[in-house]
């Protein structure tokens, strides 16, 4: 069943001679429980697509429908509520609030929604323990390793029980072991928790952990295929990427 549907998305940055068309008519549908990796060369529009799907930005043309809500018609207040309650974000550089502890960071989306601190931190603790950070709940971000920080960020993205998880280069700042851990974690979220995950990445090895692969080039989707778990998906993805680039 379709969770989010993007239709003919167009986005252009700047004006006149310096105008850059980031998306030139992208249509994409994600179903519940999908784990999709978006790949493509730099500047192909991957991040722009993620921004538009997450309600962080508005398209110049086209529509984004999340469930029954048409995001492009919502005002700032409406979009804020969608981001707060239905979408979780994971960023390349973790983006934890530096002045807050791990548990406070995870609880933040709930407290912003008016949930009491004790309830919010109770839920946050459950997610941190689930992600193996039960002994790090009171640490500040700069007291955690990169992998731990990214797991805190994922816990924060999940604490509101969102239907859609958007990850922008979630392993870009991590060593290979931590990156593999995060990739497995995202896959398990899709497999075990039926979350819909869309991940933008440059790394074929990480992309191979997804069940579906979307290639973008010059603002359009040039390939969209399901990945088979039985094949050596990592090298398949790499060769596919090289062919398309």
């Amino acid at each position, binding site marked *: 069943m379709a969770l989010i549907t993007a239709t003919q998305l167009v986005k252009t940055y700047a004006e006149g001679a310096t105008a850059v068309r980031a998306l030139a008519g992208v249509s994409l549908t994600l179903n519940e429980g999908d784990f999709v990796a978006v790949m493509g060369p730099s500047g192909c529009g991957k991040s722009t697509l993620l921004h538009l799907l997450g309600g962080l930005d508005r398209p110049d043309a086209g529509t984004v429908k999340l469930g029954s809500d048409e995001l492009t018609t919502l005002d700032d207040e409406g979009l*804020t509520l969608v981001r707060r309650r239905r979408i979780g974000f994971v960023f390349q550089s973790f983006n934890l*609030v530096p002045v*807050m502890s791990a548990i406070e960071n995870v609880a933040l989306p709930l407290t912003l929604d008016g949930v009491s601190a004790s309830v919010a931190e109770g839920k946050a603790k459950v997610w941190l323990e689930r992600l193996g950070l039960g002994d790090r709940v009171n640490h500040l971000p700069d007291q955690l390793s990169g992998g731990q920080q990214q797991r805190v960020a994922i816990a924060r993205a999940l604490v509101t029980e969102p239907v859609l998880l958007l990850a922008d280069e979630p392993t870009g700042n991590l060593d290979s072991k931590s990156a593999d851990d995060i990739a497995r974690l995202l896959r398990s979220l899709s497999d075990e928790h039926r979350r819909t995950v869309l991940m933008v990445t440059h790394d074929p090895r990480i992309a191979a952990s997804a069940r579906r692969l979307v290639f973008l080039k010059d603002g359009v989707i040039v390939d969209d295929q399901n990945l088979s778990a039985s094949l050596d998906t990592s090298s398949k993805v790499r060769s596919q990427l090289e062919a398309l680039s």
Partner: protein
Amino acid sequence: MSATTTLALRYLLRRKTRAALTTTAIVFGVALVVAMGGMVPTLTASLTSSVLSSVEQVDASISTTTQAPFPADVLTRVRAMQGVKLASGRVQGMVSLPAKSAPQLNGKPIVSLQLVGLERDEVDPVRPVTVTEGKPVKELSADDVLVSETLRDGAKLKLGDALLVPSVAGSRTFHVAGFVSTRPGGIESVFVTLPAAQETLGLTAQLSQVDVRFSEGVDAPATRQALLTALGSGYLAEASRGNTQLIDQVMRAAMPMQAFGVLAMVMAGFIIFITFRTVVVERRRDLGLLRALGASQRTVLAMVTVEGLLLGVVGTVLGILVGIGMERLVISGLAPVWRSQVGLVLEPQPTALKTLLVAVVLGVGGSVLSCLAPARQASRVSPREAMRPSGGDARVPVSRVRLGVGIALGVLGVVGLITGVLAWQSVGALCFIVAVFLVGPSSIVPLTSVFRRGLDVVMAQEGKLAQGNVARQRHRSSITASVMTVALAIIVALAALTNSTIEGVVSQIDRTLGADFMVMPPTMMVGSGSVGASADLARSLSAVEGVDVATSLRMGASRSGTQNVSLVGIDPQAYLKVAAMDFEAGTPESVGQLAQPRTLIMNALWAKQTGAKLQDQVELLTPNGPVQYRVVGIGNDVLNYRVPSAYLSQASLQQDFQVDSDLLVFVDLKQGVSSQSVRAELEQRLEAWPGFILRGTSEWRDKMLDDGRKKLNAMYVLLVVLVVPALIALANTLGINVLERVREIGLLRAIGSTQRQVRRLVLAESLLLACVGALVGIGVGLWLGLITVRAMESFGLVATFRIPVSGIATTAVIALVFGALAAVLPARHASRLKIVSALRHE
């Protein structure tokens, strides 16, 4: 605690130094407002305390509205009135004690005392004077004096000791006959018999006050009203006003200081604005993240506003405490001087609720208001910022509309200036100031390039990089320079104002004071009540060989409507031989017209306030009720330009206001007579008048000039404090610039920049901004100074616009010193960054 408050608090605590610096600015502004707001009640309470304390003891205390003496027959009339059981008259006046024979109090001579004459047989049943040692009041003889226990202990006085008191006839020696218990807060007073005081003060058959006790069971308010009705509008039936002219003076002196406090708070507002603006830039990513996570615009707005609120509350509380401390410190420093010069005890009063409210409104309200615009800007940060790699904010283009409006306003401003019309010049100044802010981001680069050429001589490489940084952050740089501009403009404007006033006064002295000598008390008390000299003094001086004319001035006080008016009694025939007036209406012949009864010359200040013209009738309140005076001239001389004043003949002053003693004598020598040859003889004559001293007019002029310059120097010190917020702003901006450029600084260090070069880079940027701020500040300051001086002229005050060369030099030095100081910490921080971690910095 809500997420908003938690975040606000955490962010503040994370940047403790910046929060502390910003709070300091608020503390400073609030403290000044509180300290000045607290000092005024203390000073006025001191001025009214002696009078008020007497009100508590009697049913009514009768005096004139101007505190001027009145005919003694009022006492007889009061005693005859229904409901009055007892009444006692007293006379009082301030006497300046000769420095040589004045008793010492805490090591300092008491230069003035209040001499009080009491009715021996009537005073004790009405308002008892508690004698703790020596003769009671009813046994006092004509040469006896009672002094306070404080004076006894401080000056080590014994019974029988002599006390020399200046009198209208020269001087009079009293002997200490007893000691009275000291009344807290009261004026330092000595008590003699009524006739002795009347004789000493030259107030024969006059009284200053009548104390009344009512019969049992009478309706006190109704009886007081009946007394007032019987005596007329020139009287008060309870002495609650105190010396209104002195209080007026205190208020007048305190106003600029309070304005200074408000100015400091405005500067603090600037600091908060800049701090939060930079905070928004610095936290762009965090703010974007919050928005991405679902924080609404309102939440972000609230978070930043709460930060401002927290700073405002902390700053205000600390500011109030510091202000009260400052006030106590100043009062304790001022108390001995006030005691010896004015003869009053200063006791700190509890800070008024109104002052505290003003402080809270300014401190908390100002802080919140100042951070609103940055908070709004913060709330508009796109959630996409969270996804963007950091590296400082992008160059923000300068709006063409903003630039266009700025240029248009600047042109309007200049046109306003060259019209020469005060109103247009004022509007022009306002336009120009707004224009400076609007064109700031566009003009900061060309302006800094002017100064960079100078900087190239000592730090060419750093100057180039620094200018690049200024160009990259032109909005922020221009705001920082603007703070410096505002602070320095105020210095230059006030320097221009003070310089112009001094010049104006001195040139007026030169124009209007023709006498060779002036004979005056060492301290001139404001208003009525000071002991003067009988006409014998002027006669004695005019009899000296070589003296052409010796003519006196007498001082009185009155009210016209609600306005206190100083009265100057002159001899219409002799005055123009020793002095002149700057006439705005009328001619020198107007002085001669004062010989006609009930005519006066208004000074320009009073005339401007009332809009009076030649031949108008103005009402003056006398002890016998209001009387009409005809205006025969409007003019100024140097002695009375600051307060509303009127010149009238000594005959009128005596007839309507019972003033017949001289307070100042002008002595003019015959043509060709040297002042040295006459001086010794004049001083010898003055030995019989120890309450007066001789001053050469040029010597007095030089003293005025010297005093003015000292005040100017003191003002510079005070004003430097005003620039402190600019220092904080500059340091703040530089600090943020360093934070934003950590990676860039790491790169510079990696490719071979020394720590010293990095420090010099930050210093160069600071100096460039300071120089631009100073250049514009001096221009704006001169403009504001010109307008203020012209406004003063239009209000009838004396001033001639002069460019304050020393003020400009001071400003330039302050700008450079503060520019260098502001760079110290950020430069240190930048130079000590670890290269590897700086290169990895996000």
